[in-house]
């Protein structure tokens, strides 16, 4: 190719993918429950050592792995989420009751829209969700065409950790089923977006009509191998998947 380097956002390891995340960073982490949680990147962030983090995620960790492990290691100062309390959120629960983690609770749709606004260059928006509730206290309200709205502001991050299905070297991404969830909007809302995928395909192998996250939103992408319930991209059943039903 005439000696040009070609664009490649591909990193060889999760360690390389998460390198340079500073202490105090605001980190968006994709996923809804376990679906779409970028477990390998979170583990790499844990090993990398950044601390005093603010984490933006729908939940506050499940069980003892992934985000929960990051919390257990006391790397997270503050969490912005919609649904911290779950049957298996014991790590967060204990930290919260001990006053060792700050919580900003945001209705899930406002959380999603605030993240979307950050990526879309919208400074703030009037949403009907939460009007008249405790989660809108102190916020500006306005009646527009007879409906009541609350002003919510864009929510940005320094880093996004996202789990997608497949990528090409430009960073074009496709997701898989409901594991898509927060990935596309977080990828657009962070200064540096780091993505783990099952496989990296040749450029041109992702159907242009089906790209969900165009590559301009992605800074680094790393392949972590096929998820346990797939073979060559096809679902093969769940008999041997640990925790799949939890």
């Amino acid at each position, binding site marked *: 190719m005439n000696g040009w380097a070609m664009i490649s956002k591909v990193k060889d390891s999760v360690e390389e993918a998460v390198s340079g995340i500073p202490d105090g960073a605001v980190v968006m982490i994709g996923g809804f429950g376990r679906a779409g949680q970028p477990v390998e990147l979170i583990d790499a962030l844990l090993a990398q050592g950044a601390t005093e983090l603010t984490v933006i995620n729908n939940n506050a960790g499940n069980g003892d792995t992934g985000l929960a492990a990051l919390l257990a290691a006391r790397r997270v100062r503050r969490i912005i989420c919609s649904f911290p309390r779950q049957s298996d959120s014991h790590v967060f629960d204990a930290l919260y009751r001990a006053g060792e983690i700050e919580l900003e609770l945001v209705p899930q749709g406002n959380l999603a829209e605030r993240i979307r606004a950050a990526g879309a260059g919208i400074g703030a928006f009037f949403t009907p969700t939460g009007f008249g509730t405790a989660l809108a206290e102190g916020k500006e309200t306005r009646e527009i065409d007879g409906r009541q709205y609350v002003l919510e502001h864009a929510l940005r991050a320094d880093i996004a950790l996202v789990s997608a299905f497949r990528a090409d070297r430009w960073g074009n991404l496709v997701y898989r*089923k409901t594991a898509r969830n927060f990935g596309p909007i977080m990828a657009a809302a962070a200064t540096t977006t780091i993505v783990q995928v099952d496989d990296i395909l040749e450029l041109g192998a992702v159907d242009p009509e089906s790209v969900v996250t165009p590559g301009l939103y992605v800074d680094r992408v790393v392949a972590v191998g096929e998820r346990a319930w797939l073979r060559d991209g096809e679902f093969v059943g769940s008999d041997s998947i640990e925790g799949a039903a939890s």
Partner: protein
Amino acid sequence: MTTTISRDQLAARVARDIPEGAVMNLGIGAPTRVANFLPAGLEVILHTENGMLGMGPEPAADRIDPDLINAGKQPVTELPGTAYFHHADSFAMMRGGHLDVCVLGAFQVSERGDLANWSTGAPDSIPAVGGAMDLAIGARQVYVMTDLLTRAGQSKLVKECSYPLTGVGCVNRIYTDHAIFDVTPTGLAVIELFGDNTVSQLSALTGLDLDDATITDVNHKELA
């Protein structure tokens, strides 16, 4: 002691009001049972706020796909006609009024249709709202499905909610184990009684002035 219907009977009763073609979101808990009582072959499109329309029933144990879950994080399946989308698009569907019906649980509903279903306000509880506030304002028809009384015997239908609100004036109809209530501009109206319940008994139980719309409704139907 008034008579009540079972939770499954109530779910079946809600299901009877869901028309073919409805796009519906069923809240976590008892409302999810409504899907079990939709007639086989009736096409009702289920939305789950984590990014899917066309959700099907729970899979067989060996077909659980961790990438395919509902808002309660339970494994589900996809039906022909399914579409996936991201979280902002999913909540845009709700907030934008594109869902026909959602069915939610409740701690309390006021006679003006205020809903409280996300927090009891207990000082030591860990707050968690999830999509409750979005669902509450996010469908053309917001149905609540609940026991009329708490375990301690207190009415969940109240003059003013004492628990933190989920949404203001957002509920259209309340399906309870005693009766069905519509939220009207003048307060709650009983539109259907279960068992031997009477409107006056329900007024006594709830401490609310209740309109009796059970007869009126039938008349309207006959006149229509």
